[in-house]
């Protein structure tokens, strides 16, 4: 699995001819946790949208494990920001994970024993089995993130795109979610999270992408997460927490 790569070549995403992401080329290895860093309007969300097929790239291609974009879309799961979710929606944790099966089942195919097994396995991996019958608003912030990860696992997604997953979590919940993401990476998944809390980056992520319309820097956190790169990405007022 870890030989898988997500290859982005010359990707440009524009809205009304105004580019949000400029000629971006990246080769990401599965089995890593990657932080996507950049100021507001840097194109982080646009990149995610292009990866899951919500916007059509103006130029460039996306390949996962040698397959083109259409096939790749099924293997990529997008986890929205907390504010984008209607937490009062009548769905339990298990119901949420079951939604992950819909894309594979299509509209009419019977929900079978295999699907139920995949859902239970995903819940167990995310340590949510005991909370499976809870409505999603009756979970803590960290549990809510894990519930959405369980849906991605039930979908059998290989790549997980998380939009600001650590926002609003307290320290213990952050640590636990960080450990969960590492566990997913160790199992061969590629985990990419947009993130804004710079001081936690070295603890949470193996690699870093600095994005500001175009690629500023990409590489191992230890090598690339430098004051110079932060400065180039965020401008001179960047707050590093140091």
């Amino acid at each position, binding site marked *: 699995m870890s030989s898988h790569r997500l290859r982005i070549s010359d990707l440009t995403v524009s809205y009304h001819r105004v580019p949000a992401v400029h000629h971006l080329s990246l080769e990401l290895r599965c089995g890593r946790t990657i932080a996507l860093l950049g100021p507001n309007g840097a194109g982080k969300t646009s990149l995610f949208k292009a990866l899951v097929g919500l916007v059509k790239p103006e130029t460039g291609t996306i390949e996962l494990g040698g397959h083109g974009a259409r096939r790749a879309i099924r293997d990529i799961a*997008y986890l929205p920001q907390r504010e984008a979710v209607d937490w009062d*929606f*009548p769905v339990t944790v298990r119901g949420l994970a079951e939604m992950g099966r819909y*894309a594979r089942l299509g509209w009419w195919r019977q929900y079978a024993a295999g699907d139920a097994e995949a859902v239970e396995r995903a819940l167990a991996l995310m340590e949510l089995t005991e909370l499976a019958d809870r409505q999603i608003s009756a979970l803590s912030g960290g549990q809510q993130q894990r519930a959405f990860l369980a849906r991605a696992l039930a979908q059998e997604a290989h790549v997980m795109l998380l939009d600001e997953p650590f926002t609003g979590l307290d320290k213990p919940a952050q640590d636990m979610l960080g450990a969960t993401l590492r566990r997913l990476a160790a199992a061969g998944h590629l985990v990419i999270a947009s993130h804004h809390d710079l001081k936690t980056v070295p603890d949470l992520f193996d690699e870093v992408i600095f994005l500001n319309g175009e690629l500023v820097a990409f590489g191992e956190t230890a090598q690339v997460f430098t004051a110079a790169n932060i400065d180039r990405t965020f401008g001179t007022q960047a707050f590093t927490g140091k």
Partner: protein
Amino acid sequence: MIDWLLEPFRHEFMQRALFGCALIGFTNGCLSAFIVLRRLALMADAVAHSLLPGLAVAVLLFGLAPAGLFFGALVAALLVALGTQLIARCSRVKEDTSLGLLFACAFSLGLVLLSLSPVRVELHHYLFGNILGLADSDLWVIYGISFVVLPLLVALERPLILTMFEPAVAASQGVRVNALNYLLVAALVLSMISSLQAVGVVLALGMLVAPAATIYLFADSVAALFWGGGLLGAIGSCLGLLVSYWLNLPSGACIVLVLGAIFLAALLFSPRYGLLARVLRRRHLHEQSLERWKPHAH
């Protein structure tokens, strides 16, 4: 007493009305799940009011033939729905404003047209319904609509749930979100036409919102909202009709009032999301925390 309770079941017109009520209540109740989740209630109200000019034009052109009324209402509602989208997209006026403006104008136009009609039209019937006057042709229209709308909603349950919950994620999984939204509005217009006969233009919203809103206070699954809403809609509508017979009150208003009363009871007493349960839970927590601070005698 028993005789008094059973009396409505002896009349053929009441049996027919009860049957119609159950079917309309069920279809509208099922659909109400998606109206509540998609927050379409106000849009539904606007659509209901905009049916009136269509009915009026149909009366002017074809007299009181049900097929004519059906198509008149359908065209009017679609014109208002599409006109709203058009104004919202092509100008700086927002959707709620254009919707409000168009439906008020449509309703007024309906009133003017009906006053011009050479046929004597009981405006009252369109505004507040007349379930006791159900003709065979009306029943056929109701049948037809139920047999289109219900299977459609059941077949599209999965993509609809995905779309209601997270439109962006649904789209990323290949669901055609816009097409589904238009389809939902079409289903809304159809169900509304079926409920016109029972509760009329002004009260139609009650049948389309109350059932699922009630179940929403008990259940945590869309399937429960859908089927529970249908069942509650059917039972509540029939009960309302019976109450109106027993107490000699207007039927449409009784149907909506019974559905409203059931909702109110749920709002107060639902064990999970009711107001009473919430107050009790809060008090329980308060007492627990007081307990923790009590000095323990050793």
